[in-house]
Structures are given as structure tokens and as C-alpha cells.
């Protein structure tokens, strides 16, 4: 692909519907795809990434972690089963845009309530179909994630679109969490008579996490990411949950510093960005992956049990385990060149964090040997980079929620419901309706 200059690929299909408008996807490096608008009209900029999951476009599109990103789906035919409100993973779409090979406007599934193009328009998501997604994916694989613009405005010339892609602010260094988190606290109930009371920090939380916690008997108070340690202590929760969220974790200092304060006080469980928050809190550094992990088929080895889980993944940044502190014990160094996975338990590497004691690597991505999970050996905290809550993706790692429960139970018996149920009723109902679905 030319680094300089513009390379344009024509739309792969003819206009799929009579009134379809053309659209273009322009990458900062000059690669341009013509296609058809299959969502909202307008322009959207973001980092273009790809997701290889074969089902679950709706869950992907409503995952707040995609904030700032244009999602390319590798499955060629999208929209086949439409949209079902109960499959939403948050209150709306947060991704910048959507790129597909082909879009279906007439879904076929008993659960379908609307078509994807209609829903995208409702959600204001700019989307393009007719793109050679395979070519785009292999380009991203080779060149790394890049900024891009989708536009349905035919009056803008291509060079200008490329320039706009180049001008778009990259993800690194940006705090996207504050853009997706819900501003007010809300509560998710459970059927359990004496529930565990859990504070979940919403950095862009997925509903399926709330559904999982609720199903296991947790009443969850969801707080904004700016909640302070004092706020959390005031609620006296049995455990603290750190949610997934978008973008670069390092700018989200307000959150990981809060976490650092609370480590050791109560059981903590983090997922995705929550994992990065815990890691940063114990002194880790994070780095950007070349093109991230987005899909539903990554093998992750649980180093404590030797079991391999097929996992849902969605992250562009990654924790550098060795940066936490000095190695101790007989931990084996793992690199992408040496795929020998160490024997479980004894050789899951351990490092020492300056403030929080021993930290153990518990989960490893078998595709590229990156960090997928850690636990603190001297405090009650653990986290994983992938998505045990699924939605979309396999539910192989559901046990982690139970581990969190066990950690809370080991500390003290379930405390029962939060006592200061001061959440606005209207909000509570709407959110709970989703969460309980």
C-alpha cells in the first residue's frame, strides 16, 4: 500500500437498496474504500480496528469499550438476525463507526425487533458496507491500527477525507472513560435474599457483567469512575468491581489511584480496563498493541489450573507484567518466541510490587503470550484482560465471577442489600430492565 498518495478501492456491491447513498472509508495512510451508507449519515472519525467474532455484532456495537474506534467486522454478511433490545450491552452505541462487507436490511430471527441499518440510524452510528473487509483487516494486521474517517458526504474530496483521518486524535493519551461512563450512580438488584453488596466502577460497563453479578446474588451499586475511595468506603461494600472501558488506561489516573488506595481493604475484581486499572495501581506500565485483540476465539491459559479458555477479547492496550517489579521465585520468562507454557501453579511467574506485595501472572494469551490476568498474593484482588462475562463470545471463564464471590465470602458473610437506596427510581428501572434481561 502506498505510504504517500491515495489508493481507492471501488465499492464491492452495487447499491443494496434503491435509496442507498454512497459512503467512503478513508485511512490516514491513504487507503480509501468506497462503499454504501448503511447507518446514519454524516462523518465519523476513529481508530479503525477489526473484530473476528462470528456472532454478536449488536453486543460489539453497544460495548462502550469501542469508544473512539471504527469497528470492522470480519464476518462478511452482517445484520442477518437483526437487533434485539435485550442483547444490548449498554444504553447505546459508543463506537465511532462500523465497516462491513455486506449489510442485511431484512433480518430473519424470531427475536429480531429491528434491522441493523434502521437501528444504526437511530443510534446515529455512521456505517459503510461494500468494503473489502478482508483487505482492510490484513492491511491493519501489517500496518497496525490506524486512524480513519467514514463519510457519507459525497461533496468532500477524497484527499480531504484522508487529511481528516490524519488529523483525527489518536487513542493513546486520551481519557475516553469519562465519555462513556454514566454520570450518576444506579443500582442493579438480585433475587438473592441476602445479597453480596458490590460496588462496580463504571468505566463503560457492559450489562452482561451486571447480569452475571446479579445472577450470582450480588446487589450492585454502579458508581461513576470519578467516585472516590471515601465514596466507596461509605457504602461499605463486600467487594469492588472494576469494569471494562475504552481506550488508553494510563490517562485514567483518577480511577487507578482510587483503586490503589483501596487495595487490601476489600476484595477487588477487574475486567479489561478494570484489569489495567488494578495493574496500574500495583505499579505496572501498559503499552499499545499493534492492532489489539478483538474477537471471540482467543485461547487463554489459566496458569493456575492449566485449563485453556476460549475467550472474548476487546482491548488495544496491554499490561507489561515485568514492569510491576522484580521477579521472584521460579517464574518462567515467557516470550512470543518461546511458547513453552510453564507447569501450572509453581511456575506462574510472580513479581513484587513496591507497595502491594507479590503479584502473580495467572492468565496468558496463547496466541501472542500477552498478559491476560493477574492476582495479588498478599491482598484480595485479581483481574483479567479478557471478557469472562461474554456477550458476545463464549462463557468458558464464567468461574471468575464465582471466584470473586468466594473472595468476598472469605472476608465476611454477605452483608445484604445496600441500605441507602437513594438512586433515582426512573433510572434504576430502565437500567435494571436491561441488566436483568
Amino acid at each position, binding site marked *: 500500500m502506498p505510504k504517500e498518495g491515495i489508493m481507492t*478501492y*471501488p465499492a*464491492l*456491491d*452495487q447499491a443494496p437498496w434503491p435509496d442507498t447513498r454512497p459512503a467512503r472509508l478513508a485511512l490516514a495512510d491513504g487507503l480509501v474504500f468506497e462503499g454504501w451508507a448503511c447507518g446514519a449519515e454524516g462523518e465519523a472519525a476513529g481508530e479503525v480496528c*477489526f473484530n*473476528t*467474532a*462470528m*456472532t*454478536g455484532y*449488536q*453486543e460489539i456495537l453497544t460495548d462502550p469499550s469501542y469508544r473512539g474506534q471504527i469497528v470492522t467486522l*470480519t*464476518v*462478511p*454478511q452482517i445484520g*442477518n*438476525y437483526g437487533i*434485539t433490545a435485550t*442483547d444490548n450491552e449498554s444504553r447505546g452505541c459508543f463506537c465511532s463507526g462500523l465497516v462491513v*462487507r*455486506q449489510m*442485511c436490511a*431484512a*433480518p*430473519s*430471527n*424470531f*427475536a429480531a425487533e429491528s434491522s441493523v441499518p434502521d437501528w444504526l440510524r437511530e443510534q446515529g452510528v455512521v456505517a459503510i458496507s461494500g468494503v*473489502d*473487509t*478482508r*483487505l482492510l*483487516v*490484513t492491511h491493519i*494486521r501489517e500496518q497496525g491500527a490506524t486512524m480513519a474517517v467514514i463519510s457519507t458526504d459525497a461533496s468532500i474530496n477524497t484527499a480531504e477525507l484522508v487529511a481528516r483521518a490524519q488529523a483525527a486524535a489518536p487513542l493513546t493519551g486520551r481519557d475516553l472513560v469519562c465519555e462513556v461512563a454514566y454520570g450518576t450512580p444506579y443500582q442493579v438488584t438480585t433475587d438473592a435474599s441476602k445479597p453480596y453488596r458490590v460496588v462496580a466502577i463504571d468505566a463503560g460497563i457492559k450489562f452482561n457483567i451486571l447480569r452475571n453479578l446479579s445472577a450470582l446474588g450480588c446487589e450492585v451499586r454502579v458508581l461513576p469512575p470519578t467516585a472516590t475511595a471515601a465514596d466507596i468506603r461509605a457504602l461499605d461494600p463486600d467487594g469492588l468491581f472494576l469494569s471494562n472501558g475504552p481506550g488508553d488506561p494510563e490517562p485514567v489516573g483518577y480511577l487507578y489511584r482510587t483503586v490503589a488506595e483501596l487495595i487490601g481493604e476489600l476484595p477487588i475484581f477487574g475486567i479489561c480496563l478494570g484489569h489495567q486499572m488494578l495493574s496500574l495501581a500495583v505499579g505496572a506500565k501498559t503499552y499499545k498493541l499493534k492492532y489489539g485483540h478483538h*474477537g*471471540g*476465539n*482467543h*485461547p487463554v*491459559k489459566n496458569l493456575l489450573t*492449566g*485449563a*485453556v479458555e*476460549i475467550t472474548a477479547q476487546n482491548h488495544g492496550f496491554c499490561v507489561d507484567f515485568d514492569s510491576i517489579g522484580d521477579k521472584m521465585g521460579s517464574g518462567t520468562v515467557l516470550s512470543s518466541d518461546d*511458547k513453552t*507454557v510453564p507447569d501450572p501453579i509453581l511456575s506462574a511467574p510472580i513479581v513484587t510490587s513496591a507497595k502491594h506485595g507479590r503479584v502473580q501472572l495467572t492468565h496468558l494469551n*496463547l*496466541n501472542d503470550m500477552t498478559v491476560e490476568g493477574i492476582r495479588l498474593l498478599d491482598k484480595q484482588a485479581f483481574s483479567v484482560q479478557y471478557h469472562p462475562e*461474554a*456477550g*458476545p*463470545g*463464549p*462463557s468458558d471463564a464464567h468461574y471468575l465471577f464465582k471466584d470473586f464471590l468466594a473472595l468476598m465470602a472469605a472476608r465476611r458473610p454477605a452483608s445484604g442489600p445496600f441500605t441507602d437506596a437513594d438512586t433515582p427510581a426512573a433510572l434504576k428501572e430502565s437500567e435494571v430492565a436491561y441488566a436483568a434481561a
Partner: protein
Amino acid sequence: MPRRNDIKKILVIGSGPIVIGQACEFDYSGSQAVKVLEEDGFEVVLINSNPATIMTDPGLASRTYIEPITVEFLEKIIEAERPDALLPTLGGQTGLNCAIDCAEAGVLEKYGVELIGADLGAIEKGENRKLFAEAMERIGLEIARHGYAYSLADAQQLVIELGYPVVVRPSFTMGGAGGGIAYNAEELREIVTGGIDLSPISEVLIEESVIGWKEFEMEVMRDRNDNAVIVCGIENFDPMGVHTGDSITVAPIQTLTDRQYQRMRDASIAILREIGVETGGSNVQFAVNPADGRMIVIEMNPRVSRSSALASKATGFPIAKIAAKLAVGYTLDEIDNDITKKTPACFEPSIDYVVVKVPRWAFEKFKGTDETLTTRMKSVGEVMAIGRTFNEALGKALRSLEDGRAGLGCDGKDIFTDESNFTEKLTIPNQERIYYVAEALRRGMTAGRVHELTRIDPWFVDRLVEIVACQQSLSGRALEDLSAAELFAAKRQGLSDVQIATLTGATEHQVRARRKDLGVTPHFRMVDTCAGEFAATTAYYYKCYESGDEHVPATKSRAVILGAGPNRIGQGIEFDYCCVHAAYALHDADFETVMVNCNPETVSTDYDTSDRLYFEPLTYEDVSDILEVEDPAGVLVTFGGQTPLKLARPLEDDGWPMLGTRPEAIDLAEDRQRFSAVLDELEVAYPPAGSATSVEEAREIARRLGFPLMVRPSYVLGGRGMVIAYDEAYLESHLAEAARITPDHPVLLDHFLEQAIEVDCDVVCDGTDTYIGGIMEHIEEAGIHSGDSACCIPYFTLSETTVGEMREIARRLALRLGVVGLMNIQFAVKESTIYVLEVNPRASRTIPFVSKATGVQLAKIAARVMAGEKLADLGLPPDDRRLERYCVKEAVMPFNRFPGADSVLGPEMKSTGEVMGAAPDFPRAYAKGQLAINYELPTSGTVFLSVCDRDKRAVVGLALSLRNLGFDIVATQGTAQVLEAAGIPSEVVMKKYEGRPNVIDRITNGEIALIINTPFGQETRSDGYHIRAAAIRHRITNVTALSAAMPLVQAIAARKEGNFDVCALQDFEVAHG
């Protein structure tokens, strides 16, 4: 957990002959497994009765036994080889059943053989529907409401609760044999009665009908650490009610939400755990009610299957290979992903294309049978195609079928014969349904109405709407008026050049030229298991009309091997075997080998077999596209049967270099007139013949030659449309049909040599020398298709003089025709005159059998010769050496799948597969062949004899032998008279039309152990027909040719003596090359 070092020697069971429901996918699975186990240092002992397989190549397993797959022979092998373990999950239901029988007979315990890769309890739980139902209940999964019946009364009682229609499934039968859907009391009676008969435990399941529900399959793998992955989810285009083997199927699943899919995924893994499949692959089938999403489990198979082969080809994830590694101790995370080489096998493939499988039927061979597609599989093969969308993949699949079609209609072949029953063609599943659906849409039927009538999911119907709309947008327009964008759109909708040509009134060549002018050319993409996330290194390609070629430039000269396409009768695994051997040999000859094929069941479409694999249709268009990319040094068209052969001429005309025998020589052998001239020139006898282009001409030739006549269309395989005409009336009635088959070619009429001995001869010629690979003496006389008759190496009644003469004729013919590579000759010997019936300068169906029998790998040798080597340099054993063991090839017939079709053998081939029996003498070898098919031979009881006048003299000796063997004889009036005259006692039994009780009653009552009944002429729906039908229904050995009866009697005698040995191919007393 690493490799088990306590196991050294592993016994693997193959699946036996190719039959409907169990085809060469098990050769693919078995070969992969044997290969990977041998590579890992295990000593593999293999048993398979099918010589046409790659897995039985002597170089693959350490010890290869081509023996009947029965407990008796398995025990002999175990006794001789003392394996540590038995891996039974690679040989289909046959292998699994035999392993269970062995275990239950105490054989495994006796010799301390451990069952690996499967657990008897798990197999039973998976296959015993009662245990399965209980297991599903324990894990909270629903199955269809059901009950068991052991009698018709039981079944009727159940139907009162369930209501019609009900599905009837006999327990423990293969490929759904004997099952069906009963809509009324009459059908219930028919299916239940037949099903109870077929079930080894006389049991049928009666269940609520879920006809019209969506059908899905999941291919799951699990290891001993409880790691589990879904390799592939498959959605059926045809809803429930059609056997999945007869359904068009699609991967990945298209119409399930993630939540619905994950529920199915979780259920699949839970089922493996509950059933107890500790390691290996399984297939789980689900039905989903389209109205409310209610999901029920249909069944699971705890072994590799046809679907697992498809899933492997569809995703690049080699299920059988990995199943074998799991069985010997590895876990999924310890095995590399072959395709990426960088990531582990413990993952779930993600695919960024759509795969469509379409079954191939052969109803034209079985006139009179019900062609409705039901829960009982009837297809004989399948094709798979890969495209970026369902639309594109479907078009490619339909033009891969080798049935003359070039896509979803608009190909000049749209004939809707059933106008009056047009709607019925939509509502009742049948092999043409998809074409009727497309036509209904063309005629303006709404997608909604099509869905109502067919229950095909609206998503699929909508895609057909798009394809039809694209066709209609081109229809009637001039080719030169089409823009590049329109042509691109058509290609992306899966339209072939032939279709575009038909729609625009142009020729295929014009379309191709126009496309190229406009830059509408394809690109090749990789099947990489990971949707592009990681760079792949395996050269496994499919074609699409998008941008960005992923094709890796080659470093060596390329040899392109064109495969055989879908399995069908007349063209089966034998040709795939030849193509695979060619790939091996040409790779060794330092070519980069390129395989093109579209049959997912085969070894040739394993990405391991050749250096590059193109999973593409074998049409002129698709092959030309590949050749343009590969620019090969040579194209091999003579190994894949008729499919690539018909491309030889057009490809050579385009300037592509052919390997070996030139198309000119093929034409010379095929053109009867020119070929007769060659035979005259060489002073070789042949039956007087003539070639007719009209009925009048045919009549004239018939008068000249005299009846009986062999009537054949030219350029056919498997004797399609061939008959023996005994009189003028029949000749004329047949001609209309034969002429319709190949209108461009004349019909050939040969004088039919009655009661001649037929001999097959395979040779390799390098242009200078000729190597006689094998001379096979047929058991059945000339007139029965060579593919359907048994034959033996070495010959057992021919004189040395005759054989010497044949060898000489073969040499002279090969040189005269200019054969470089393989050639097959069919001789007939009558009254010591040798006639040449037919010469085919290409790989024949008998190549694998000959290679196994003689130990000389003819296909490999031929490929090397075609690449320029000389026979003299190959160090071959003398081709006239006397072989130590008699090897009999016997054909396997599918008549039990086609009730209503006549099972009499004739010049049109009907068998699906073959077995081989080898022994130090002919009778025992023949007996083994029979045992390999029917598992047992009748050794006592009553024989029913009824022969035509022609055979009456010979029947006496036969009857005498049978009496001596202790059989009682019942005979029809005429035959009984002959026996009485000879002093042989027999009981007279009435024919069907003579009254009752008649012979049919006797057969039905189980009073007949063996039937010898020879027909005469063109009797249809005669007494003989009913006897044959009854024989098939009650699984009684029925011989329809006296020439086969004598060997059978010898075999029975040998069987009664016992004394059957087993012998590994590696121990055959000849050098294995």
C-alpha cells in the same frame, strides 16, 4: 498432558467400502490420523477392507490389513500384532460398531488392548437413544418428545400421543437407514415395519416431528484436560426433515444471535462432558423452532463424521488429525495450528467467508425409486464451495456438481418438467428443489410465499432473491452493454461465465474475453482459520471477486492436478486416490504441486496433500483462472476421471501444457470409428460395431450386426445410459433417452458378446516401454459393468497363451495411441478369441486395487513417467511375475437405499464402492470379499434357485455343489424340472404371480438363506424384480449372474472349512514399490 509413552502400537479401524452415508471422508480422516500417529513415532496397525483408500497405502501405516472389518478378522489381527491400543473413532459407524463388538466379545480384554479416543460407555450413551435422552435431561437440555416401539402396535399407540407427522428412526443403523417421516397410518406401518427389521436390536424411535425447524450442527473437540472448542457451526439451508447429508449446508451459522449461538455452544460442550467424550471430536445436531427459538438436541456422534470432514475443509482446522493426537495424550494447547504455525490448536476458527456444501444425488441410476429427500440419506457425494458471501459460494457449489448445471439456473439447462406439480416441487424436498425455488422467484412468487412452501429460512430465500434479481438484470441484454460494475456484481452473486453467456446470448469464451478487457478478474484468498488476524503460511486458496491477491508466488515449476469432483456412481474415491498419488509423486519429482478440487470428503482436498490447494469448481472458467495465476509447467487431466478429462481439449486449445497423454490420444480412443481403424491396423479383434446419429441409422446397424447389441452413448463414465438391447423395439424405445444424454455425440452400437469372459488390464506407458500393471479376470461375464463386477488378480481361468496375447495387444495399443501415463483396456474372451471392448488412456477405477494387489504403485509411477522419467529407470519388478496371493475386488451396491429400483446388474454401473479380499487361493479370497460386504456368508439352510433358460444347463452342477454343502433347494417349476432330470431333489415353489404361498412369502418368512435368480433380457417389474426387492429388504444374498454363483459356492465351501488367515500388505510376497 504430553504424549503417552506407554503406548507403542495402535490399531486403527477404517470404515470399509464407500456406501451412502459413509464415504471417502473417512479415508481423509483415517489417513490424516494414521499419518500424524506414525510421524509421532507410533506404530500403526490398520484394518480396512477398502483397497481404494489412501489410508491403506502400504507406506502410510506400519502394518496394513485389507481384511473384512469383523470381530473374527480383527481378533486375528490383534493376535498377530498385539497392539497396545485401539483407536475406533476414525472409521465411521462401521469402525465404531466393530470396536464395540470386539469389546463386548471380550477380545480387547483377552489381549490387553486399551480403547483410546473413545469410551464404551460414552459411545453407548451417545448412540442409545434412551440413555441419551436421560443424559440430556440431567443437563437440562430438551430433546424431541418421543417413545420407543418394538412393534407396529407400539408405534400406533405412541402416535396417539404425539400426533402425525412423526419421525421414525431405527436404532443403530447407519446414515439414518430405514428411517423416515410418517404422515399417515399407512406410511407408519411401512416405515416402522422396515425399521424394526433393519435395526439390529429391532427397535425404532418414534418422535414428535420438528419438520420445518431450523437445523444446526456443531463440531466440537475436547481434550483430557476438559478444554473444549467449537471448530465450526453449520446451518442447514434445508430445514429439518431432510437428512443433513442430503441438505445444502452453510458455514458459519448465519441466522443466530450471539446469545442463541452461545447457548448452543454451551449445550454442545455440556453434552460432550455429560456423554463422557473425554478426547476427540464429536458432532452435535440441534433443531430450533423458528417461531420461538425453542432449541432441542437431535443427536450427537462421538466420532469424526462427514460433517467433521466438511468442517475441517471449511475452516482449515484438521479435526481428525487433532483427534488422533488427543487420543494419544496430547492436549489442545500442546498442538500447533497447522495453518498459522504460530498459534495453538486450542482455539475456535473464525472464518471471513461463507462455505456452502451441496449434496450430489444419483437417482438417474435408480429408476423407480422414490426421489423425495427424507431423514434417510440418499446422496452419493457432495461438493463444497467457498465464497465471500453465501450468494457467491452457492453459485460456485452448484456449478461444481458435475451434473451439467452451471449455477442457479439461467444456464441453458432450466427445464421444469413438472409444471403441473410446480408447487409440490417446492413443498416436498427433492434434488431439484433449489432450481424450482429460483424459478418460482423468477416467475414472481414472493419470498414470503417461497418460505411458507419450503420452510427454508427467509434469510436464505432473500439471498436467492438477490441472485435471481441479478440474473434478471442481465437477461436479454447484449454482453458488450454490460459495464465492469455489472459484471463484478454478477460474479459476486456467484454467476458463472456460462450463465452470463446464456443470459446475454453470448458464448462462454466471449464472456471471459469481455471480463478480462474490463478488468473483471478474480483474486485468490487464503483459508487461514483466523479471519486474517494472523498471517498464514499454508497455501490453501479460494477465489473471489474482491481486491488484494494473497496468492504466494511459487519458487519451483508447478504441476496442476485436476481432481475428480464430487463422488458419484462411476466416479468415486478411486480417482481421488490417483490424484493424491500424483501429488505425492510430482512433489518428489521437485514440482510445486497444485491441487484443484471441490469435494470436501477427499484426501486430495487436505491442505497437507499437495503444495497448494485450490478449493474451486472444476469448470473451464474456474480452472482457467487458476492456471492463469499458477502458469504451470504441466496440467494433469487424466487422473481425475471424466471431470478433468472433458477439460483436456479446451485447456490444451488455450495453450496450457498437458502432462502425459495428449488429448488427441484420448479422442482417438473415444472416437469409435477412428479407434476401429487403429484396431484394424493392429489386427486386433473387436465386436462388430457401428455408430448411429439417428434412429434410422441405428435400426440399419442393428440389422447388420444382429441382436443382442450393447448400446452406449459416447463420452460417458460408469456406463451411464448403457443397455443391452435384445430386440428392435427395446432399442428404439431406449434411443430417445440415450440421445438426450449427450446430444452432440452419436450413439454407439456394438454386437454384444454373450457369456464372454471379461478382463480388465491397467498399463503404464512411457512412450517407449509399457508396464502391464495388472490383468484382472472378471467373475461376472461381459455385459455387466466392470465397476459392478467382481474381479481377481491374478487371473484364475485364463490360459497363459491368452494372457500373453493380451499383454502384447496392450503394449501395441499403448504405443500406437501415444499413451504417456496410464491406460485401461477391457477385453472380452469368447471361444478363445480376444476382443478389445474399450480402451481408456487415463487412470481407471481399478488402479488402487491393482496397486494394492501387486504392490506396485501404478498412479505414482505413471505420474513420474508423465513428468518425463522412463519406466526402465524406475526399478520395477517384472510385470509378468506370478503373485502369491489371490486378490478379489468386489463391488458394493446401494440398493437398500433405493427401494423400488431394480437391483439387477447390467452395463450401467450402480455400485458405490468396493472391497478387497486376499487369500492364498481364489475361493477364500472371494469369500473374504463377501464377508467384507455382508459380514457373513450363508452356510446352511435353503437355497432358492430360479434361472433363465440360457443358464439351465449350468445350473445342474451348481445345484449339486449346493446339495453337497448341505443346502436344501427350492426352485421354480422350470428350474425344478431340470434338477429333477439330473436327479437332484428340490421343492417346487410358486412364482409371485402363480399364487400363494409363493417365493416372496418364503423369503419374507426368513425361510430362504440364499437366492440364485438369473434374469433374461429386459424384464421389468417381473417376478425377478420382486424377488430381488424382497432379497434386499430382508438382506438375503441374491446372485443375479450364474457366473457369480459358482465362485460363491466355492466361497461357501471354503467358509465352511474355516481356515482364514490375515496378511498385512507389507507381507505380500512381492516388493512394494
